[in-house]
């Protein structure tokens, strides 16, 4: 068994390390990073735009390049999250919280570096997992039916309450609001539209980019501009830049976070429909729960960058498991990459592994190479990105607005989306004034529709019998964990303020 895996990996590396494939991988990573730093242009848009580039390549080269673009955009998305509070895709929302706080304190360098290092480590572990355990993990993923997904998402949402450092009540309000925003669109079961006000552009719901760009990017700009005192204070940096690279203390603090983040990401990433978002949020929640000083989270704690970034990247790698072994795409980007394979004349599915081992193992090897290239490329670029922060805000903010508008428009080519972003920007500004955290709203917005879909599907299959959630063991496990989590948070809250309670419970 081991011998065959080594043989397979050797075949993979010999395919991926050919100069031409290395070159495709490099181009993919570079172009992906460059596009990923444009606010609002996430992996889906980038891969869709660049798909024609791969038409004339051979299948191996094409998929290596597209995967490079995928990792590159993913990483580029984190870069803007840290530098200017603009999450490039849903998983980077978590990175915004502490990453941007670090940037404002002059520590954007260490934040960017730890994001790269954490991602690389997680990517390496993810690649090994895919190579060693791909097929059996895919089997486990198939065991997840509607009840399991529903219970998993309930758990993730409750865990989100831990995320925010505002009051418990405010957090719950934001979660409920996020669920409501997520309801907008066509109901999967009946086909009826809800809260669309007759606008066909809302028929498929609000897009993540619209909500996130509004609540984070646009609101941030509004709040910066209201500060009339003097132009200097508007600049993102409010402290001197201290060092480009993480210190020993930073690394020590992050090591555990990266390890735990990787584990969390690998778990959720394997499930189709779980994915990077849940991973990043959960990893953050775990870190905050385990930290001795949870009050630092949200103020620029490096663990708040390391863990979600590692989780996100581990999940991205593991997403290839179901895509490659079962031919079931894991979200829109994967669907596109599979589409590219089809254009190359390869029917994606379980047979790819046996019929085209060079392609399958070459891709796995190139995953690791792509991640290594990202680190090599990005560590020296940290200095360049930081210089961006020194730009006077009067130049920076119009540029951000323009790119944001382009990015938002590029998702569905709908002008309505830009107006909706402005609306969410104003809403985000009000939230800021009310000291309500937007992150739980985003998580609820992303998970809400999935939760509803799976709840209704589970009940359809069980013919309306709700006990299905506790009679299926995996689902029951998640619900028990949720109940424990709730008890953990609510019981002490009756007696003391929540901050103290959290401090106390983690000290135990």
């Amino acid at each position: 068994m081991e011998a065959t895996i080594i043989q397979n990996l050797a075949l993979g590396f010999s395919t991926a390390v050919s100069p031409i494939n290395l070159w495709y991988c490099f181009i993919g990573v570079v172009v992906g990073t460059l596009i990923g730093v444009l606010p609002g242009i996430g992996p889906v848009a980038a891969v869709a735009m660049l798909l024609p580039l791969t038409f004339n390549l051979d299948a191996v080269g094409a998929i290596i390049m597209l995967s490079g673009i995928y990792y590159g955009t993913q990483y580029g998305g984190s870069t803007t999250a840290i530098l200017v509070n603009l999450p490039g895709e849903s998983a980077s929302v978590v990175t915004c919280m502490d990453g941007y706080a670090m940037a404002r304190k002059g520590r954007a360098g260490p934040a960017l570096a730890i994001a790269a290092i954490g991602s690389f480590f997680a990517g390496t572990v993810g690649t090994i997992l895919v190579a060693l355990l791909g097929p059996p993990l895919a089997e486990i993923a198939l065991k997840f039916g509607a009840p399991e997904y529903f219970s998993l998402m309930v758990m993730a949402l409750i865990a989100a309450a831990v995320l925010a450092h505002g009051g418990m009540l405010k957090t719950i309000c934001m979660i409920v609001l996020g669920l409501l925003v997520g309801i907008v669109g066509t109901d999967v079961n009946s086909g009826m539209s809800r809260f669309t006000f007759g606008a066909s552009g809302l028929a498929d719901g609000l897009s993540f980019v619209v909500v996130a760009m509004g609540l984070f990017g646009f609101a941030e700009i509004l709040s910066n501009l209201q500060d009339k005192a003097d132009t200097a204070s508007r600049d993102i940096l409010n402290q001197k830049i201290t060092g480009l690279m993480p210190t020993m203390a930073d690394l020590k603090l992050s090591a555990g976070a990266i390890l735990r983040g990787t584990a969390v990401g690998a778990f959720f990433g394997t499930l189709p429909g779980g994915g990077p978002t849940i991973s990043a949020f959960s990893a953050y929640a775990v870190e905050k729960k385990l930290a001795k000083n949870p009050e630092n989270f949200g103020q620029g704690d490096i663990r708040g960058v390391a863990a979600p970034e590692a989780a996100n990247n581990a999940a991205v790698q593991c997403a290839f498991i179901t895509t490659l072994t079962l031919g079931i795409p894991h979200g829109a980007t994967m669907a596109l990459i599979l589409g590219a394979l089809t254009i190359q004349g390869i029917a994606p599915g379980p047979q790819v592994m046996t019929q085209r081992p060079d392609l399958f193992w070459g891709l796995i090897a190139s995953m690791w190479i792509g991640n290594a290239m990202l680190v090599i490329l990005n560590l020296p670029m940290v200095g360049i990105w930081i210089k961006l922060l020194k730009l006077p805000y009067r130049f920076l903010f119009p540029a951000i607005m323009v790119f944001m508008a382009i990015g938002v428009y590029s998702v569905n080519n709908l002008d309505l989306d830009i107006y909706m972003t402005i609306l969410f920007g104003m809403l985000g500004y009000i939230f800021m004034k009310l000291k309500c955290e937007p992150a739980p709203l985003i998580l609820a917005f992303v998970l809400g529709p999935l939760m509803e879909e799976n709840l209704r599907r589970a009940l359809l299959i069980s013919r309306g019998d709700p006990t299905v959630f506790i009679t299926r063991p995996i689902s029951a496990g998640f619900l028990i964990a949720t109940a424990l989590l709730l008890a953990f948070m609510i019981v002490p809250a009756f007696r003391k303020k929540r901050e103290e309670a959290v401090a106390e419970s983690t000290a135990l």
Partner: protein
Amino acid sequence: MHIKNIPTVLTAVAALCVASGAPLHVVAQTYPTKPIRLIVAFPPGGSTDIIARLVGQRLGDKLGQQVIVDNRGGAGGTIGTEIAARATPDGYTLTMGTTSTHVIAPAAYAVVKYDPVKDFEPITLVASTPYLLVLHPGVKANNLKEFVALAKSQPGKLNYASAGTGSTTQLAMEMLNRAAGMDIVHIPYNGNGPAGAAVLGGQVQALFGSMPAVLPHAQAGRVRAIAVGTSKRSPALPNVPTVAESGFPGFEVSLWLGFFAPKGTPKPVLTRLQTELTAIANSPEVKALFEKNGASAVTNTPAEMNKLMKSELDKYGKVIKAAGIHLK
């Protein structure tokens, strides 16, 4: 490089034609002078998008102008199709119309702001994808007859997955439900991928799935293919009988994909496109690519296409009404 030169050459040829007194062919011979937008009313990565890109790229090579795929997904394909219906009819906007956009959506949605027949110039079909009825291997039925018997022995117990409410995967199964007098319960999923995963994992028992999505699983033995919805057996699975030969004569469900232009597009342009598209779809290379993915190349004439749409609107309209599907 050489692609850029083609329009110049064409212009020169056209100029010569004018000089030699052949003005009728001018439009067709100068067209196209700029890139052509091909609206795909579904998000990138889906089967419509893939076929559009496959054919679009080759059409671009033949015409000497790039064909740019413009994904305008949403609302079951009605958003993009409406944009195409309203576009300037100059041959520079085309759309990939399918059974979904030109038959099912107009029949199932309460409001659709285009008329599939009156607002478009059909050019030609390029492909058709069969539907394949697959079962989870744990289901005790080896063919359609046994499956019908099983379903009838326990009415309302079995489930089938679909790619969504109002999708062809639902309508195909509803047609079978009605034809066989079965009561298999509809469980909608979000697309062909998740619906396929549900059958692979045994969450539901059956799926009348789109061939490209389920064929790999059937070939790998992860699901049991018991019937195809087309009138003839599929070359990809010659041992799997059709629904019609399994006791339901006349049963036929497949998804067709074809090119449409907005109403009023100049005739010479349409003729040119029809010639090129027919050649592309019939080329051995494209035929093989389609077949590998479970689709087959099909071409026809605009008149045949209008006839097809009318008969399909009638057929699916009845199922949609009977199954009580109303989309808003």
